[in-house]
């Protein structure tokens, strides 16, 4: 399912066309977030002419439908990615991306603009909604620039087209001419690099790759230049939709992310000053006075040389403690040059050039457990892959953020698995230790390779929580965490995959799950689970897994609808929450996800007849 145009400017209205399968008899389109209002208009089957005639075509393929919907974007709508869903008698659809822009938005010309000589002229700043749906198609736009002017070109493809292997690319051309061809244009710059980390959010393949390609270019000479938007290998098909934004680099797009899931190990999560508070908010802070917890016969009395690690961790984990920020000092690649830092603190630096490494010195006590988290605020993976190495005062490796498999003698074996954004470890002996930060390769380094590392005590907490449910067979059959279409009288299962971090996984600790906002006639019940992770090769045996991986448990909840539950016309939004319990003390509610739920009449014919008597349209 995809839509075109991909977005619009806030404070404007436009008509959007949503295409996809299983949309017959659609009667409403809903937005997930405030700021966007929809007006359902029409739905029709798309009949493509073919050499064999329309009837033959229909026999061969599942039909596709076109839903036209008016979209009104509030002036106060949040610029960035939003999501629309289509409601049909068979329930609520997958979500489809719709973008809201702060900049002026235009649509690509209907006239051919597939070569420099026919390029569509655009004024900067602007966002162009475009589409590449024919093999070998490429769109050319023409910009006039002043000498020395710098522009930022960004192509944002839709999440859906990214999942369909639309790999967009931008080129900038100038008319230069050559001895052979006076009309020759010459490519000045090219980029197909995705901006942003490639992440698997919710294990949804549509989220697997970054969706924005950007290119910043300074034009030495004033004149007319051509911007080409194309795709890898000249591949194109219906649904390859994009937005091209051209603007001065210092002009912000004002985009902000919507509600984001917790991300334990992303390199682009923000390690802000309240990080400790955030972590504690996913666990249960022990507020009892320290004396109550002092173990019997403890060693940390007046005469003791070493404080009790538990006491120390408690003190350090006080969220009131300010996180000082320390910067690297060049050259910082020798132990004696290392910058001394307290624990906890944040260190910042840049891997300036290939082979550049920075060292930071910190003190620990015997038995102390620390966590090291790294963020890449600018350049990130796969270009910049910061490696954290913990070494002792004699330069010996203790542990690192490199994850390895056990030794396996084969030329095709994978010995290194990954470089992680977080590593934890316990220090058997107290004393001085060092944190070394460098790129995992020996070849990469750049002034844009900025890093932030949080050095902190370990905080037991609930990490990432993945929610999955399976749609029924008569729908698209994909794993979709974002919706539940429930037939009256039947049940579906929600499965939560819970990651428990930094010592949370203890017999005395639990995680409770609840579902809130259920409509009448639907209840949430504990469910049995033989859930397995999605297919693929078996994970390798990890060496030193304790430094890298959380403990994982799954919990299933069954949503059961009574037979007499009233079918929903528009979806109901339910909230799945998880709540940590430590030693009998309840922690805060963690919102796992808000998802739409519909209750469906088991008899579609009856449903369809009911619909005929209702007025079309739906807003949220």
């Amino acid at each position, binding site marked *: 399912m995809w839509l075109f145009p991909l977005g619009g400017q806030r404070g404007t209205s436009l008509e959007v066309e949503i295409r996809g399968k299983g949309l017959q008899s659609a009667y409403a389109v809903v937005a997930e977030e405030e700021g966007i209002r929809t007006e359902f208009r029409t739905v029709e089957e798309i009949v493509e002419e073919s050499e064999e005639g329309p009837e033959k075509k229909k026999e061969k393929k599942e039909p596709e439908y076109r839903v036209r919907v008016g979209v009104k974007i509030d002036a106060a709508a949040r610029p960035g990615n939003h999501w629309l869903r289509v409601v049909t008698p068979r329930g609520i659809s997958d979500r489809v991306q719709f973008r809201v822009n702060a900049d002026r938005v235009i649509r690509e010309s209907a006239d051919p603009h*597939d*070569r420099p000589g026919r390029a569509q002229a655009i004024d900067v700043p602007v966002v162009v909604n475009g589409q590449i749906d*024919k*093999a*070998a*198609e*490429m769109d050319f736009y023409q910009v006039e620039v002043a000498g020395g002017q710098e522009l930022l070109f960004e192509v944002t493809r839709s999440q859906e087209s990214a999942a369909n292997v639309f*790999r967009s*690319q931008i080129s900038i051309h100038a008319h*230069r001419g*050559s*001895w*052979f*061809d006076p009309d*020759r244009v*010459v490519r000045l710059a*090219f980029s*197909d690099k995705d901006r942003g*980390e*490639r*992440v*698997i959010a919710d294990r949804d393949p549509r989220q*697997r*790759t970054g969706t924005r390609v950007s290119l910043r270019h300074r034009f030495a000479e004033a004149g007319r230049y051509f911007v080409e938007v194309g795709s*890898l*290998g*000249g*591949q*194109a*098909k219906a649904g390859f939709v994009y937005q091209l934004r051209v603007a001065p680099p210092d002009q912000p797009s004002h985009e902000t992310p919507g509600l984001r899931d917790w991300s334990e*190990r*992303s390199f682009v999560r923000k390690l802000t000053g309240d990080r400790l508070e955030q972590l504690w908010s996913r666990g249960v802070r022990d507020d009892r006075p320290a004396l109550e917890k002092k173990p019997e016969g403890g060693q940390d009395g007046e005469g003791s040389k070493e404080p009790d690690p538990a006491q120390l961790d408690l003190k350090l984990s006080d969220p009131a403690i300010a996180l000082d920020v320390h910067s690297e000092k060049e050259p910082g690649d020798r132990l004696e040059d290392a910058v001394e830092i307290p624990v906890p603190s944040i260190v910042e630096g840049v891997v300036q050039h290939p082979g550049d490494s920075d060292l930071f010195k910190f003190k620990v006590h015997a038995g102390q457990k620390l966590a090291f988290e790294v963020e890449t605020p600018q350049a990130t*993976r*796969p*270009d910049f*892959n910061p490696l954290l190495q913990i070494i002792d005062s004699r330069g010996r490796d203790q542990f690192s953020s490199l*994850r*390895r498999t056990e030794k396996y*003698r084969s*030329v*095709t074996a*994978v*010995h*290194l*698995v*990954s*470089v992680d954004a977080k590593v934890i470890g316990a220090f058997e002996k107290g004393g001085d230790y060092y944190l070394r930060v460098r*790129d*995992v*390769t*020996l*070849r*990469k380094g750049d002034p844009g390779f900025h890093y932030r590392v949080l050095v902190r005590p370990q905080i037991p907490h609930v990490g990432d929580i993945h929610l999955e449910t399976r749609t029924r067979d008569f729908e698209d059959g994909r794993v979709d965490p974002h919706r539940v279409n429930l037939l009256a009288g039947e049940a579906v299962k929600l499965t939560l995959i819970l990651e428990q971090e930094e010592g949370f996984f203890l017999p005395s600790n639990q995680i409770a799950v609840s579902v809130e906002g259920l409509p009448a006639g639907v209840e949430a019940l504990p469910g049995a689970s033989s859930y397995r992770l999605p297919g693929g090769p078996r994970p390798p045996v990890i060496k030193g897994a304790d430094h890298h991986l959380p403990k994982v448990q799954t919990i299933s909840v069954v949503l059961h609808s009574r037979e007499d539950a009233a079918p929903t016309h528009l979806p109901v939004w339910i909230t799945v929450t998880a709540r940590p319990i430590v030693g009998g003390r309840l922690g805060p509610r963690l919102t796992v996800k808000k998802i739409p739920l519909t209750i469906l009449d088991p008899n579609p014919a009856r449903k369809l007849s009911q619909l005929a008597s209702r007025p079309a349209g739906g807003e949220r």
Partner: protein
Amino acid sequence: METKSCRKASAIRRTPAALIAVWALGASCLLAALVQAAEVEGTAQGTSPQPSSLRLAPSEVRLQGADASQQFLVMGTFSDGLERDLTAQAEFSGSKSGLIRFSAHSRIQPLADGDLVLTARVAGREATASIAIRGSQEKRPFSFPRDIGSLLTQQGCNNTTCHGAVPGQGGFKLSTNATYPRDDYKWIVEGGKFEVLTAEMEEPPHPRVNLKDPEKSLILQKATLQVPHGGGLRFGSDSPQYARILQWIQLGAPYGEEGESENIQIESLEVYPRASVLDLDGKQQILVTAHLSDGRREDVTRQVVYESINRSVVDVDEGGLVKAHKTGETSVLVRAPGRAAAVRFGVIADPLPSYPEAPENNFIDRHVFAKLKKFNIVPSELSSDAEFLRRVCLDLTGTLPPPNRVRQFLASTDPDKRNRIIEILLNSPEFEEFLFFRYGEIFRWYGGATQLGKDTQLYGEWLRQSIAINKPYDQLAVDRIAAQGYDGPSRFFYQLRFIIPPAEMIAEQVRVYLARRLDCARCHNHPFEAWSQDQFWGMAAFYGRMVDLRDSVMDDSLLVDDPALKDRVVHPRTKKVVQPRFLDGRELPEGERTDLRMKLAQWIVSHPYFAEAFVNRVWDWFLGKGIVHPVDDFRSTNPPTHPELLKALAEDFRVNGHDVKHLMRVIVQSRTYQLSGIPNQTNRGDRLNFSHALPKPLPAAVLLDAISQVTEVPETFASGERGFAAGTRAIALMPSMPSQFMDVFERNERKTLPEGKPEPALAQALHMLTGKTFTEKLAREGGRVDRLLRSEAGDGEIVDELYLAALSRFPTAEERARLEAMISERPRREAVESLAWGLISSRQFSHNH
């Protein structure tokens, strides 16, 4: 004068006959031009040259032991500058009597210790050599490697087509050329056979010697055909070889010398002369000296195997005496256990009475012309402007010059116009595009079944950007050999999602950057070269730490080297972990193994082979044949035709910072490159010495682009959901894009390094007749033919335009007249389309000449 072939041109039709007619037309033009070329007298009229000096080779000899011997050569330098072998005419005498004896005409053996001077006399001239004799009464102890191993090598028992093959032959295995005598000894005396992947024996060992009844030993019975032997009769039971082996078995089949001497091996072979020019029916004795690992030198002239590459040019007997038969150039291979060498021979015609001096543009001409003079070959004339322009445009940019530019260039009277156009081309976007195509061939930029599209793109973009900044070739190589992370050069190491195994990788890298083929040393020592299996795996070990980081968070693999991986590469013969070792045998010290591939890259680009390999490749691009050919098969048995030129080019490339543009500029500025393709009587048969331009078939992609250019109908490349915009040049195309034309014309798919150049095929001729590239483009509305026909251009102008577009020259007056007549006699559109078809189907068009 009207020639038969020119008359045929008037009957051009799109039929095979018309195709032949166009080819003939091209040939007739060459012939016509040949008439204009200066004729050179090639027959000898002068007197026989006389020796002006004499020398004795070797000039210093040390004979050690009673079994030592030394052969001498007497070489005379003659007034024509050549050296000739006068050994047969020489008389020898020693300064002291009783110290040596002559076992043959020019071979001595020691009788007693002492020093003496050996004198050779020919035609009143003398030459001397000093001889030191030590240990003349000491018989050399028996040594299995020396006494039995070398015998097996001489008899061919251990070559790669016999028992020296990887699995052996008929259940009996020997190391190639007796490289591993300990293994050979074991396999002969104890039995058993080599297992490639396991140390376990599949069957019980079966000894080849019978100590109780030596004459029943299988090794003797097989070789003498007393029992069936697939290798046939190797020697008779009355031969010295039989006697030597029998005696060895009778003595209990000992291994012989142990300790240090056991490891004494031939480190290199020195041949004298390294190259020689012979008169017709001339003779030359080859002298072969082995440099042993203990520092000694030994005359092995009679213990090696000789083979002439081209026996019609020279022949060689088993003693190393070479005889010339006809003019030409070839090599004689010399093989000893584990080592090989070659001697280059040129056989020249009688000298010219007055050799014309050719102007030299740069050092290339100095080297090329000096050799031509030596061989009595006169270089062709300088190419015409039209010939030069088409050639240099195609060679530097893969693009035909447009008609208006041809007119402009031909009309220009600027004496420096050739250099000016060279600079324009070197700095054109078309140059970058074509160099990308060239690099794509050798660095294997490809797509399709074995490479992900995004990896292909990333790799290609790195190449493009490297070319755009004229990145020095050594830096390009370092980037690619030592690539890490997620970037362009690192993508080369992946096939789909897997890293290419070290052994496959190193063979390719050595072939690309050092132009040596190590492939066979993967399984066994190279049969003819110094490359051993140990060397191969030592080099492979540099790639042994490559791993990819591919985790659940990231789609794109990161290529890194893991220092913790120290046992990845295992020698298939010894089954032991191999340490990284350079091709020269030097093991990388333990303390320097942090970044193996960077060490390897630095070693490769600093090695003399590196620059030589690349300049030779570029030379082949421009001259149509490498100084070493094939270009990626340097070996002692395939020596360069112009070793000094190769060195000079490589040195010039190095001192100019491995600047590829500079290298190309130097080559195309040379007169050698700019020589005409029209031969004269002295160089007609020459294919080795760059005495005239050789026609080079256009690569499939260049040919397709040229047709699109001439017809002004761009090619469309599309397949399913994929495609490239009209106007995309074939040379810039991702190679996986389907194209029937390029398949028929044998494009390089780049899945492996190419083994040779495409050869003409019947399918190509058929495609010319019926393929849409040759037919539809000509009739396309808006194409050049259509445009010309719709214009007010007269028939003569149309003929001119098509000739300029396709052949970059005006038609001759005769051609124009005939073709105008042909057009006037037939429907105009059909006639002009036929003419255009004839031109793009001609050999003149499909070749760069």
